[in-house]
């Protein structure tokens, strides 16, 4: 529609009325202003609202940092004996030009050119230049030869070995460069879309930086190399590095085997032991993983903030054991020298070394216990007195020992065989059967067997279900009319179908009468049993300080929890009609139960303390995260239980008192004198032991050994003047058989070790 006053053509004179074109220009003006307005809004946002943060980011580039190395804390035992520490060392790094010989070529070329003069040099033919350079090269080549000789001497290797190392380094870098250049070329072609002929390969970082040829040089040797480092800075660089070392050297422990069962007696023997508690102390790795950087980045990717304790590529990280668990404590903060690029002003922040970690272990006792477990001592291989009919004599048995200080819950020794250090010396089939990589005292879970009986009695007494003097009659089996079910261990043909008759708690414990505890199990019921097992700590992970920090994926379950049926599982058992049988089975440590040697030692220590819970710990000052409901026990019940356990070790009928040989000769298990011991044996059913004896990776019928049992022996011990037990010792020999016969002598040797190291009847270390 035509608008009045707007003709097709503008009037030629006079003041012009706005035309269509002028309206469009106005519109363009408004659009331009709007566009600039948008830019202004963003500018205000950046320059006003975000100004401070941006300025800080920009100014941070004015500062350059130089990092000062830190050191990792030491791991020491309770007496301050160093188990692992950082040691300053030196590394000799050689420049890439020296490695390739280009250093000599470049200098020779410079000399030749200087000698000839620039004009004459320009007139030289290529051959003449080569000849001149070759002539000038001799002194520089001699310098390189002298360097290689000095390095070979410092490294204690001959020139041939060093030359091989040089060759390998050169080859590695050249292969790496080829890969990097190929990748760069392809990326370049993809990016700019033209053929790679114009791609220029630049030296990769490894062709610029020096390469470490000798990585572990002591001070004295380093001084010999300083001459080169000072006169030829472009040839060799002595770098300060740190190495993780274990201070306690391999040692010898004397063991008097005369105290052992007769087949093992061979006088006093020397047992060579390695680094004590090597598996507990653990190892470090010199490579940083993604999870480390994610857990604690050196530079926060979001904010750019630097955490001086964060991880950088060349850091050392705990890989196993306490090195891993105490990573955040052992780790230090690097120092920082901040230099303002514009003013040259320096600000120094000193490095902070990592804190030491003090273990509750006694390295001396630990070494003794490890010696006792050494197969050379004869107690962890199948012996005649074991009466093990399934395994051949001399078969190696995995075993674990925990020694706990009852009043404090501190772990004094914790050892196992085979150790991780034996990994390389074992055949593959032995590795499979013996699983040397496991930290057995806290990771091997087996049924507790009869060692739970004193705990069951104390719990039933606390619940008022039995009194100290209440007799319970053992008829050989628990369920009337079913003599083949829930039998006492004596109610078997080899024992003449014997029964214990009426027994009170003390004797029932000493004789380890199953029927007495079947009855207690029935009275308690599954729920009460489960509650008490959880009070004893069976159902949870102990948290002694071996669990890695949050964010470390490996080793999360290094401290295993035991097995106790939860409410749903118990309901299912009851619903299946097996409630009674499960309850009486659990009362003798069978059924759906499992725990580790550490659980066993802790439970017995709790019993000795009258039910008072003190969480076990391996690290001084560690606060365990586990919480348990404490249920104090009647003192009369505790006394009766301890009396029964003492009888078990000392009375003729005690299950932990004597070893009976095939010729009916008998010897005491506990041979240590001047000690008062309370022991409980346990012989727990074990699954078939799969052993690929011939190593053919096929499990033949004969290689799946059934009808084996795990041997438990738990002792509470102190010198004979002590009113209450001071140390709890738990011994587990997997697939060993009888607890008293197999594990008992090991516990006896541990008691000897406690005496010889001054923990019993001596001056405490």
């Amino acid at each position: 529609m035509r608008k009045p006053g707007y003709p097709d053509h503008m009037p030629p004179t006079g003041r012009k009325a706005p035309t269509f074109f002028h309206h469009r220009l106005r519109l363009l003006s408004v659009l331009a202003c709007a566009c600039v307005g948008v830019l202004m809004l963003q500018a205000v946002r950046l320059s006003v609202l975000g100004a401070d943060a941006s300025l800080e980011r920009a100014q941070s580039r004015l500062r350059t940092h130089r990092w000062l190395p830190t050191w990792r804390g030491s791991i020491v035992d309770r007496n301050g004996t160093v188990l692992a520490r950082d040691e300053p060392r030196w590394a000799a790094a050689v420049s890439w030009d020296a490695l390739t010989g280009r250093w000599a070529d470049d200098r020779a070329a410079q000399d030749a050119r200087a000698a000839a003069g620039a004009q004459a040099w320009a007139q030289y033919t290529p051959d003449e230049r080569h000849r001149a350079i070759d002539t000038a090269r001799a002194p520089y080549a001699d310098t390189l030869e002298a360097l290689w000789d000095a390095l070979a001497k410092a490294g204690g290797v001959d020139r041939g070995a060093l030359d091989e190392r040089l060759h390998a380094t050169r080859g590695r870098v050249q292969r790496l460069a080829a890969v990097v250049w190929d990748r760069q070329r392809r990326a370049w072609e993809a990016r700019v879309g033209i053929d790679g002929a114009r791609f220029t390969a630049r030296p990769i970082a490894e062709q610029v930086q020096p390469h470490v040829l000798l990585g572990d040089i002591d001070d004295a040797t380093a001084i010999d190399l300083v001459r080169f480092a000072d006169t030829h800075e472009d040839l060799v660089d002595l770098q300060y590095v740190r190495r993780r070392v274990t201070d306690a050297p391999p040692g010898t422990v004397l063991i008097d085997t005369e105290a052992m069962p007769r087949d093992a007696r061979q006088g006093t023997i020397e047992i060579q032991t390695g680094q004590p508690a090597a598996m507990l102390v653990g190892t470090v790795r010199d490579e940083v993983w993604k999870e480390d950087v994610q857990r604690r980045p050196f530079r926060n990717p979001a904010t750019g903030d630097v955490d001086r304790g964060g991880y950088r590529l060349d850091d050392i990280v705990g890989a196993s054991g306490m090195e891993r668990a105490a990573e955040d404590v052992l780790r230090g903060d690097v120092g920082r020298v901040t230099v303002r690029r514009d003013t040259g002003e320096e600000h120094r922040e000193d490095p902070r070394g990592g804190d030491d970690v003090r273990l509750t272990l006694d390295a001396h006792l630990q070494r003794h216990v490890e010696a006792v477990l050494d197969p050379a001592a004869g107690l962890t291989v199948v012996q005649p007195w074991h009466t093990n009919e399934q395994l051949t004599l001399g078969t190696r048995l995995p075993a674990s020992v925990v020694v706990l200080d009852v009043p404090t819950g501190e772990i004094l020794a914790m050892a196992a065989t085979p150790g991780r250090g034996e990994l390389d010396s074992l055949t593959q089939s032995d590795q499979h059967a013996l699983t040397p990589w496991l930290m057995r005292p806290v990771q091997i879970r087996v049924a507790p067997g009869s060692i739970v009986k004193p705990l069951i009695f104390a719990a039933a007494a606390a619940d008022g279900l039995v009194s100290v003097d209440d007799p319970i009659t053992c008829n050989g089996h628990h369920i009337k009319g079913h003599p083949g079910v829930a039998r006492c261990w004596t109610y078997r043909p080899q024992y003449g179908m014997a029964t214990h008759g009426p027994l009170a708690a003390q004797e029932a414990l000493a004789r380890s009468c199953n029927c007495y505890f079947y009855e207690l199990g029935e009275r308690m019921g599954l729920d009460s049993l489960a509650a008490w097992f959880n009070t004893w700590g069976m159902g949870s992970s102990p948290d002694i300080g071996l669990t890695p920090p949050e964010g470390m994926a490996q080793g999360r379950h290094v401290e295993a929890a035991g097995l106790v049926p939860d409410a749903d599982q118990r309901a299912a058992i009851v619903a299946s009609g097996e409630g009674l049988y499960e309850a009486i089975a659990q009362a003798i440590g069978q059924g759906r139960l499992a725990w580790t040697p550490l659980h066993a030692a802790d439970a017995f220590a709790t019993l000795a303390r009258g039910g008072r819970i003190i969480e076990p710990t391996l690290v001084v000052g560690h606060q365990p995260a586990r919480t348990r409901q404490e249920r104090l026990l009647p003192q009369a019940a505790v006394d009766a239980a301890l009396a029964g356990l003492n009888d078990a070790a000392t009375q003729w009928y005690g299950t932990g008192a004597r070893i009976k040989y095939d010729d009916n000769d008998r010897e005491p298990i506990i041979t240590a004198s001047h000690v008062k011991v309370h022991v409980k044996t346990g012989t727990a059913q074990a699954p078939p032991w799969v052993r690929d004896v011939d190593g053919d990776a096929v499990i033949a019928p004969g290689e799946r050994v059934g009808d084996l049992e795990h041997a438990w022996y738990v002792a509470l011990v102190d010198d004979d003047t002590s009113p209450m037990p001071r140390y709890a010792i738990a011994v587990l020999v997997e697939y060993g058989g009888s607890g008293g016969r197999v594990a008992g002598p090991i516990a006896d040797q541990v008691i000897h070790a406690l005496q010889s190291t001054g923990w019993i009847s001596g001056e405490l270390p």
Partner: protein
Amino acid sequence: MRSRALRRLARWHWATPAWLCVLAAIILMCLGLAAIDTVRSDLVLRQVIAGIVGIGAALAAVVPSQRQLTMMAWPLMGLCLLMLVVLLLPGVPDALVRSRNGASRWINFGVTEFQPSELAKVAVVLCIASWLRFRRNQRSFMGLIPPLALALIPMGLILVEPDLGTALLFLPTCFTLLLAAGARWRDLGKVCAIGVVGAAMMVPLLRPHQVDRLEAMWAQVRGDTSLSEGIGYQGQLAMTMVGAGGLAGQGETQSRQLLKWNHLPEDHNDMVFAVIAVRWGLLGQLATWGAYLLLVAGGLMTAAQCREAFSRLVAVGATAMLFAQMMVNTGMTIGVMPITGMTLPFVSAGGSSLVAAWLLVGLVLSVGLRPPSRLWREQFAFDDGAAS
């Protein structure tokens, strides 16, 4: 003869708003010299010389009449297309066309290097203005196709160089010219819709680095800093530098240090606006945009006072080209547009860019100074409901 020339000069409209464009250009050039001096003082003298050459080019652009300009438009476009094709021809010696960072944009003339795409900006403005001057068919959709083709042909060649930033200037300029020439909104809307679809279809043809830049800008918009150390590094750093300037800037000494140690890429060239922001802060940015608005005002007022179609469109097109270039450059610096290789007219170091910008100002000045011919007819006076 001489008196005739003087008489002709006397008839010129010396009191023209085109001088605003000249004033704005001088202000921006001075600002640019100070900014370049902050980061690359060794380039100042070269920039001054380029500025003098540019002013000379602007004066030279004033000399030909509108009719002569109309006649020159098509040969100039031909020359530009020829040079753009030479850039892309395989086998051209490196001495003549040397690739930098995978882009072939410069022809080496011995004494200096020259970007044909800069001259193409002038040529496209002249050609579209020349095409539209006596036409009315831009009021139809089909009538938009020839002027769009005039923009798209050089744009395509420049895209292949590749120089996405410069290529992107041609569309808004062409759009502005069509708008000023009276194109209907609905037709322009159709063009836009086709453009959007076409752009979407072009995405797979983009080079990886161009896709990277789009991704980096999208990440910036979302506040995602994960790309700030990679493909978004330059954009993130530019925004940091803009923010670091604060309200009033960091002063000369501190600015030099900040810019030196932050290693902002192309700080003397494509990222010169960040230098202005660091040194003079938000006030410096506002002053820069104020100068460009002054230039736009001068250009549009010149067009408004003009009666001839060709002159009107030349003034609008030249202004639009400079304004679009400013928008892309400052937009990418402050993080609202993707990073492209784009100079800031009159401010960035670089002879081709500066001379081309002055040429465009010269065209506006030429339009403003010259009286209308005696025979003229009103153009672009359509009835479209108050031009809306």
